[in-house]
């Protein structure tokens, strides 16, 4: 028996009531790399992403079988402390969702909840997180302002900074740039490339160029099954399956 990868799924299935949205998927996410999940709408890639930090638990009537392994622990086991698990897996969504609080509070909220009360320490964390999200220079003079006053792209980077503030080991990105203009998208992509040095990143995207640009591995989903999974170069240049080829070509065309 081979030891599972530090972060991987094994035979994972997700059901919504009777409907099986994800069908027996086993795949791993190597460290210090970006894995892109692609596929047509409704193929289950977002569901799969959301199941990785068990956000699907929040949807009434959903259940799962199989395993998600993280450092040898099964995250789907019944005794797992989901909240503690989520503290190690950050997540960012398609639409920026900053808290209705100040920029500073958006970042400091998580660390403070984890027990850091020292003002100086919090200041440090806010600055580092914003710097890592490449937002510091734009907002350093207005940390007390409402986060909702920022532009869409800034808000999205703020959300990334917020996820980084608690030092996660894994970052899940659900179409993080699809609601943004090209300039902001560029910034986010640069950011992803920069961040993968310290993190495993899993990203869902509809944008093939983006997947090609930022990811190291790509997985193609279709109707809840994992059709093909491999290094991005290989998937984009020489996929094994026809359907992968067609999808990628179609999206390029």
């Amino acid at each position, binding site marked *: 028996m081979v030891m599972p990868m530090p972060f991987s799924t094994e035979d994972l299935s997700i059901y919504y009531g009777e409907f099986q949205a994800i069908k027996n998927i086993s795949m791993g996410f190597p460290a210090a790399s970006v894995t892109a999940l692609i596929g047509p709408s409704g193929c289950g890639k977002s569901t799969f992403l959301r199941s990785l930090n068990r956000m699907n638990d*929040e949807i009434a009537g959903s259940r799962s079988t199989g395993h998600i392994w993280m450092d040898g622990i099964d995250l789907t086991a019944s005794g797992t402390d989901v*909240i503690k698990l989520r503290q190690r897996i*950050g997540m960012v969504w398609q639409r920026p969702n900053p*808290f209705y609080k100040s920029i500073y509070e958006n970042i400091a909220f*998580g660390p403070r909840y984890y027990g850091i009360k020292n003002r100086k320490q919090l200041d440090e964390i806010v600055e580092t997180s914003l710097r890592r999200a490449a937002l510091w220079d734009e907002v350093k003079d207005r940390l*007390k302002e*409402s986060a*909702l006053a920022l532009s869409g792209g800034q808000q999205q980077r703020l959300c990334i900074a917020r996820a980084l503030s608690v030092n996660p080991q894994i970052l899940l990105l659900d179409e993080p740039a699809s609601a943004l203009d090209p300039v902001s998208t560029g910034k986010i992509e640069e950011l992803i490339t920069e961040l993968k040095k310290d993190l495993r990143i899993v990203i869902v995207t509809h944008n093939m160029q983006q997947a090609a640009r930022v990811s190291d591995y790509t997985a193609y989903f279709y109707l809840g099954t994992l059709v093909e999974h491999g290094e991005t170069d290989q998937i984009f240049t020489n996929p094994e399956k026809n359907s992968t080829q067609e999808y990628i070509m179609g999206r390029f065309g």
Partner: protein
Amino acid sequence: MTTQTQILRSKARKRAKTADKVATVVIIVFALSIVAILLGLIGFIMFRGLGHISWHFLTSNPQTIREGGGIGPPLFNSLYLLVLTMIITIPLGLGGGIYMSEYAKPGKITSFIRLVVEVLSSFPSIVIGLFGLLVFVNTFELGFSLLAGALALTIFNLPLMVRITEQAFAGVPREQKEAGLALGLSKWKIITSIMLPVAIPSLVTGTILAAGRVFGEAAALLFTSGMTTPPLNFSDWNPLHPRSPLNPLRPAETLATHIWKVNSEGLAPDAIQIAAGASAVLVIMVLLFNLFARWGGRTLYRYMTASKRMN
């Protein structure tokens, strides 16, 4: 043949057009008559009452037999009763509403609770008043008191508050909750620190509107807070002293019960004017509550979403 059908058809169309015109006029007349009723009522109340309102009227004590009685204590009682009611209602209503919106799973129990809320909110106020008389006034030996009144009014306002809270929380964008979850916050922390601030504007609007309802209630209070006010010493603010205005265990007539009493038992020669003046004050208060609720909600919302400085 064809001309005949044509004639018939054009006749039918003409009839339809006439019916349409008549119906439109009827609808407009009915709608305008509602506006007329409202304007008439408000105008009537103001016309009868405004002339009687003065600073003296608003602050002085009611008189039993002499002219020139005021509505100071009833006005104070109304406001204080409101505060007491809200102190009890808000925590309970928030809890109930949060349960319905965040914890309840669809099923028999949840729909039962929903039924409870619905039934509770449609009980006639007199039934609640009688229950208050039996339980708060007699069984708990509170006597006719502000506290008994506040508890009865709580029963009234609780279902409303639960609904307001449930709706306010349901109105919070799902993404906010998800952001909190992904950050590894506990559910309760998300509810109190992430969702509550977002829900506050609609909570405030709803609560103030509900509070306005308390202000006008009389039937339930006749049996619980009583129809009298002991002489108050407005320089004694210790709630434990029997003559302090803040003592929750003293009886109190509110503005609404005062109107009822003056109308029915008034011995003073200017009873009718006092009833009219007090009615005008009551309606003005309700109007103010309405305006304030809207304004407060909107201002808070603006403050929460786009203000320059916040923490």
